[in-house]
């Protein structure tokens, strides 16, 4: 590596800084606005180059990659348990959910099934991570719209859920708890009772938000009819999760393709909304949090006893094969395509993350939209940068 001179260094820094700052030249027809990468509205370093005509967007081009960590390359040099640690950090708000599809794919290739208790606890933590993730969305979208108070309630009530996850797994944000064949540990004593109490708080939070925001005229007028995504377009772009269900498509991995988790033993329902606008996406997620709380209580009540780890060898060598497992993560559909050659390390892992597809619709969606609505739409699509960029 040749050393570069200080002048070259300064020139490089200046060009980077100029790149990041707002473009000052005023063009007469159409103004190019750079939203991000440092901007309070984008959850992380997402840059969207927006061409404006007055207050309306003519063209939008998201530029992801500011957080690209090269996960798919890294998985090729990590053993399967080490990959688990890596993928925790894709969607960092509900991170237990990231581990599950990968572990299930590896278990599929090894033809090992986790014992029932492990499956139930996996589902429990999966739904808890959904609550942790989506409650933040509920508060955060309000902040994007200008209501500064609900986000504090969201963080306050999330804390209880994060404490639960921490007491069970040791980590608030990156539990790294799932293992091929089961789980790392059993639940601590008193956890079940505490979880049920926390679910009461979560339900109270949802009711509070419903009263505060859903009936509010300003919220309605800011979100209804904004960013409508017709169902065919949603399917063609691969939108998933609440974004798809808010456009009226009744599809949920937990019900339709479930493998390895125990959703068929629970009594729950899939929420859809016919409108496909930002309000629908908010509404569907609010109902999903309530549903998740309901499921957590059922899971707590029905937890079977037994071992939490199946018989797997100490050093895990996954037999040759390919497997695809996708689950309904808090952000949408997350899937792993695992190609194994019989080694300690995977041969190729394709990480299909939900926010990647969710954001790919932005150029199509933002045409003709007003600038304040850009923020509303981005907030309602709900992405995590780690999920887009991997």
């Amino acid at each position, binding site marked *: 590596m040749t050393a570069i001179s200080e002048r070259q260094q300064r020139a490089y820094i200046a060009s980077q800084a100029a790149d990041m700052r*707002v473009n000052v030249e005023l063009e007469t027809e159409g103004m190019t*606005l750079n939203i991000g990468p440092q901007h309070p509205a984008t959850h992380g370093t997402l840059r969207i180059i927006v061409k404006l005509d007055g207050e309306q967007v003519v063209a939008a081009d998201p530029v992801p990659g500011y957080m690209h960590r090269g996960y798919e390359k890294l998985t090729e040099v990590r053993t399967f348990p080490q990959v688990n640690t890596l993928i925790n950090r894709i969607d960092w708000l509900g991170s237990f959910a990231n581990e599950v599809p990968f572990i299930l794919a590896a278990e599929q290739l090894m033809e090992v099934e986790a014992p029932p208790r492990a499956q139930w606890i996996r589902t429990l933590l999966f739904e808890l991570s959904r609550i942790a993730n989506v409650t933040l969305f509920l508060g955060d979208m309000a902040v994007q719209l*200008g*209501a500064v*108070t609900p986000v*504090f309630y969201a963080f*306050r009530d999330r804390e209880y859920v994060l404490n639960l996850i921490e007491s069970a797994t040791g980590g608030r944000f990156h539990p790294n708890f799932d293992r091929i064949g089961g789980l790392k540990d059993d639940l601590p004593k008193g956890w079940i009772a505490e979880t049920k109490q926390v679910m009461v708080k979560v339900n109270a939070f949802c009711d509070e938000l419903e009263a505060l*925001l859903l009936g509010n005229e*300003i919220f309605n007028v800011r979100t209804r009819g904004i960013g409508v995504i017709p169902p065919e377009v949603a399917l063609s772009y691969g939108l998933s999760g609440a974004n798809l269900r808010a456009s009226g498509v009744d599809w949920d991995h937990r019900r339709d393709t479930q493998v390895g988790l125990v959703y068929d033993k629970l009594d729950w329902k899939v929420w859809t909304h016919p409108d496909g606008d930002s309000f629908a996406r908010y509404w569907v997620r609010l109902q999903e949090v309530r549903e998740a709380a309901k499921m957590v209580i059922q899971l707590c009540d029905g937890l079977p006893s037994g071992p939490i780890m199946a018989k797997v060898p100490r050093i895990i060598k996954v037999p040759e094969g390919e497997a695809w497992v996708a689950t309904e993560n808090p952000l949408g559909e997350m899937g792993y395509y695992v190609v194994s050659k019989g080694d300690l390390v995977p041969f190729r892992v394709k990480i299909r993350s939900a926010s990647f597809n969710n954001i790919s619709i932005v150029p199509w969606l933002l045409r003709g939209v*007003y600038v304040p609505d850009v923020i509303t739409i981005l907030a309602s699509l709900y992405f995590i940068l780690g999920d887009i960029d991997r």
Partner: protein
Amino acid sequence: MSAVVLAELAYWQVSIFRVLGLLAAVLLPAGTIVYLFLFKMMSFMQSRLGPMEAGPYGSMQLLAEVGKWLQKEDLFPDGADRKVFAWAPIVVVASTFIMYTVVPFGPDAWFANIPTGIYFALAVSSVSVIGILMAGWASANKYSLMGGLRSAGQLIAYELPLVLAVLGVVIQAGTMDMQGIVEAQRNGEIFGLGFIGNPYILTQFVGFAVFMIAMQAELTQPPFDMPVAESELVAGYLTEYSGFRFLLFFIGEYATAGAFSAIAAVLFLGGWSLPGIGFDADIMNLLGPIVMLTKMMLIVFLVMWFRFTYPRFREDQLQIFAWKYLIPISLVNIAVTAVLKVAF
């Protein structure tokens, strides 16, 4: 200060008292509003504590913030128009100071007794629009320009409902003089009951509502804070300001909140008068400011409460709300007031 004492002072001495009093009247409520409502009430409503370190319960936080801003570097953006950039905050703050001059705090505790008091106050409040446009333009920043233009449109649109709401009060009081309005409320009767006077909030409730909404918009507070929409334009026309100039904008924002609340207290809540005590009593020169402060804080409480709760309007929805809803409602209010005034 009783009338006797005042009569013995020379005019220039009275003027000095007035200037000092004005400074106190502007800055003290602004500081109280910032600490009490912005720091503490907002925090408690959001289930957090707010500043607790600086002084007992964080009461010195504002002093710390003022000190912080004062010692910052005086920055001018690269392409900024220096003179305009420097004068913009001064224009905004000046209009606030001038607005306070016509607010009476007691029978003799006033700064300027103008026969067209309320008209003067509303006219002067519009001057701040110029200051905001200056700030947006001179910052040489796309975001600031957009923020400045948005806010100019908003402020002009909401001037009309403000004025029309006030007209109802003026019709009922029969005078534009602020002291006269206080007196009319003090001495009036409602349904023949005279012991609480006739605060116009009882009869002008529609006007009060319109005035509160228009006031919220004039102060660019949520739900009308598109110009300073933090999540979108970072800070709108304020983006490039830092240090002392930002402090001026900050003080201006909350002092204006105090000024408008003071005007609202005079117009709708009866000003400095208390029901039991006579209008010209000397004691009112001491009690009056305290009463005014209390009523002001009540109205600011309402303003701040709306601010923390509601999401914000989009710019065009804001304008639709003003032109299609508020103005017709306030026109109807005026018509009804006029009819009822003649009838009763």
